[in-house]
């Protein structure tokens, strides 16, 4: 069992050391929940959901709510100290859809650090952090284009600070060439966070600490809303007896970080209503993430059970300049009812 875990960790972590550490990530972002996955199926495909047809499209591109239907819940265990969950539901509204959803995470920190990033989910300590996103989205069809918007309340909590904002997502999508869907979204349109910084020798409190190489610590007093622009395409085709779904997207977080991602799902049905799917994805990792994700799904009529695995590695840098580099697997399980 240990060998298997080690193998998974090795596979997930190897490219990180070569690429992620060298990349520029720009300003720190908050709330952290906006940087975390929100669905098991999309996570397994490189966390690419720009043209998703499931209700978790609410968290990727609200335009797709026109064709998404149903309810889903997913839970992710990032580590023994961090876990999160997502709930969302879409129903028909006029000639489109309307959705509500919530994504939340709770985690531990060795110090009172703000903001956290995906790698923070591996840390342990006395400080507790939570982050929350609650969204309401609506989408309609306009001249054969699906157009959607979502308003969301986002919040970050660390022991000594509670930061909350309203933010807006906009999206558009349409089908083309019979089998393809194109989607464009701009997410997290909202204000940045500014917090007074106070420093003592043992911890960073109310201070924004950017990720970066050890020893290169600068203190900031604000964290940006991760304004994210994404363009992506997806297709689903029959390949022999298999159902192929492929999707790819390029995201840019503000003007700092360009993150291509993509995923593939291969499904097989042996009886109407029953199917299994294997999924895999790749992404340019954000601090704390690893580039590859995998997953599987089992579908019985309107019910689907999904599983996804991603790698996380800590990138928090402490005042003493140390960092842990071991990679851990995070597991996400989801339930969808269409």
């Amino acid at each position, binding site marked *: 069992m240990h060998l298997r875990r080690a193998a998974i960790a090795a596979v997930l972590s190897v490219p990180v050391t070569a690429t992620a550490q060298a990349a520029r990530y720009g300003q720190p972002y908050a709330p952290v929940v906006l940087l975390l996955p929100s669905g098991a199926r999309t996570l397994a495909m490189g966390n690419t959901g720009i043209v998703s047809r499931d209700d978790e499209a609410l968290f990727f591109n609200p335009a797709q709510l026109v064709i998404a239907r149903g309810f889903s819940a997913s839970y992710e265990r990032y580590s023994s100290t961090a876990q999160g969950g997502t709930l969302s539901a879409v129903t028909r509204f006029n000639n489109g859809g309307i959705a509500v959803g919530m994504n939340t995470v709770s985690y531990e920190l060795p110090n009172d650090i703000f903001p956290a990033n995906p790698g923070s989910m591996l840390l342990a300590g006395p400080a507790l952090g939570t982050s929350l996103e609650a969204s309401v989205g609506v989408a309609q069809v306009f001249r054969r284009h699906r157009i959607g918007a979502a308003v969301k309340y986002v919040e970050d909590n660390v022991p000594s600070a509670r930061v909350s904002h309203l933010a807006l997502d906009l999206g558009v999508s349409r089908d083309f060439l019979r089998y393809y869907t194109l989607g464009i979204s701009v997410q997290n349109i909202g204000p940045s966070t500014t917090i007074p910084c106070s420093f003592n020798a043992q911890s960073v409190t109310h201070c924004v600490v950017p990720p970066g190489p050890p020893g290169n610590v600068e203190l900031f007093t604000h964290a940006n809303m991760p304004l994210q622009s994404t363009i992506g395409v997806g297709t689903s085709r*029959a390949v022999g*007896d298999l159902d192929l779904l492929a999707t790819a997207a390029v995201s840019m977080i503000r003007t700092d970080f360009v993150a291509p991602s993509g995923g593939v799902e291969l499904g097989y*049905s*042996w*009886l*109407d*209503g*029953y199917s299994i799917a294997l999924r895999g994805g790749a992404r340019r990792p954000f601090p704390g993430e690893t580039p590859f994700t995998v997953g599987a799904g*089992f579908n*019985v009529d309107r019910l689907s059970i999904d599983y996804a695995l991603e790698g996380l590695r800590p990138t928090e840098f402490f005042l003493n300049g140390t960092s842990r580099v071991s990679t851990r697997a995070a597991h996400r399980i989801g339930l969808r009812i269409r």
Partner: protein
Amino acid sequence: MRRSLILVALAAAACTQALKLTKDDSPTVLSHQLITAPNPGERGSMTVKTMYYGSGTDKRRAEFRDSVTLKTRTVDASPFVSMEPDVAKSREKDWGFGTSKFPLNGRVWYPEGSGPFPLVLIVHGNHDPLDYSDPGYGYLGELLASRGFILVSVDENFINGGLRGESDGRAWMLLKHLEVWKRWNDSSAGPFSHKVDMNNIGIMGHSRGGEAVGIAAAFNRLSHYPDDANVKFNFNFNIKAVFAIAPVDGQYKPAGVFTPIENVNYMVIHGSHDGDVSSFNGLRAYQRIKFTDGKPWFKTAWYVYRANHGQWNTVWGNKDNGPRSGRYLDLRGLITPEEQRQFSKVVIGGFLEATLHGKAEYLPMFRDHRVIGAWLPKTMYITRFQESGFKPLATFDEDVDVTTGSVPGVSLSADSLATWKENPLNLRNGNDPLNTNAVTLGWNNHIRGDDTTKLGKPASYTITLTDSLTNALHVGRESAIYLSLAPTDAKPGPRAPARDTTKRDSTARRDSSRSQPRRPPAKTEKDTTPVDLTIEVVDAAGHTARLPLTRFGKPRRPLDIHILRRADEERQRYPTQYELVLQTYVMPLSDFVQASPSFDPMHLRSVRLVFDKLVAGTVVVDDIGVSGTAGRFVTTGEP
């Protein structure tokens, strides 16, 4: 982990229903061969030639671009085939032409010789447009051309795909093909100059094409397009035979009504295990065909157990809903493609020989399929039949009085029946009416009480005719009684004992109601006892003649149909797991005279259905009538 996988596999397997088929009785039902003519499903003696005709410019179809022997002009089908502008644009890009320039493409099998040969067109239905359907009737082309017919498989693949309500366009295209053939036949030169028998034309269609041939038969005699009178028609071809293979019905309704079809010979076939058109829609077209011009037409409908939608076309095969049909259609119950096509060769060959070549020796197979037991693949068939001499006595459509027939002079009565009602018939999918009413008759000859062996007088249902009506209908020894009947699985409870009328006790009614238990509800348990009943005819002098119904055909309980692999989906989609198809029985009065020489058919007074062969049961009956011209459909000797 392994245990979990096994559990998942078991759960999935549990949702696949076991193969359920009605026990096959064909070894006995099809054990006779009474027609001695050559098997019309076997190749004839003529040499077969083939050719293509078409626009010569087809972008996708090489045979209609590079191999055409005769070029045809395109036609403007835009009044009949409409689509959204972007769909039209996309299709035009795909095919190289739009609705205003539809090509008249056909692949032809024809006999070598001077002719003239009857012309038969066959047109496919909706299918993947790029999985070209027209080559799939090549086996019929080879057969029919060798037997002296010209068969054209018409290309309408460019109308296939996601269109709706375009069946009138499919029909109009057929008539435009006939115009081309008329020109070629009338021309003084060319390969078909005076070789086409334009007085004997047959049109056949499959699925949507099956509806289209009915529409074409109607358009053929109209002067204007019903949906737009600015479009004028001038066809008037001698279409004598219309053959529909598993047709849809009502996707196009001229002026909002089902397409009326008149004065053609009509045959429709449908498979019980059709995974596409899952109800016998063609039965509705069969019901509404009328014979009004006094000519000798007939119509027949065949329901083929275990046949599907696509195996009548070699391209379509057994996947009735696309390549992945196997995920939800239970293909295990199907007869083989060879058997299904052998069936179609026999009935199409026989139908066209009878109607276009005038070979009357094949007519009896349409009255009673048991006379061609050696030709038919061994499965079960239910057949409807009616010829133009049919005069209705009771069709149950005209009023709500259960005691009156369809014409003055007919009265209906019942004795000891538990169920007697007139009700509309529906197709299997429930929401689709068959547009005809029938009478439901249920009986149980058991007398309620402790003695479970005690039987009462057999229940009966009587159709009584007045003398003047018998005379007006010219009923005689050559006449035949018609009825169509289907047993159901309903079984009424035992009947109440007769009241003792010798006692005049004022309290008797109250006591009786106290002591007697409530009548139990009708049971619907599956009963496999063979169904039979006695047909009794009575003349004015009271002479009776009796014959069992099974002499004239096989009454069968509903045939089990399970098309889908999942039983839950089957139950959800279909209210019944069978299609109620009535079997037509044509009963020559001469047979009754033979059984009871004192019976005088010229003075027929009543026809009685006596339920004396089965203690309890229910039957649905329709289209009771007489005919004086059914004789040509009778063979010597009966199965």
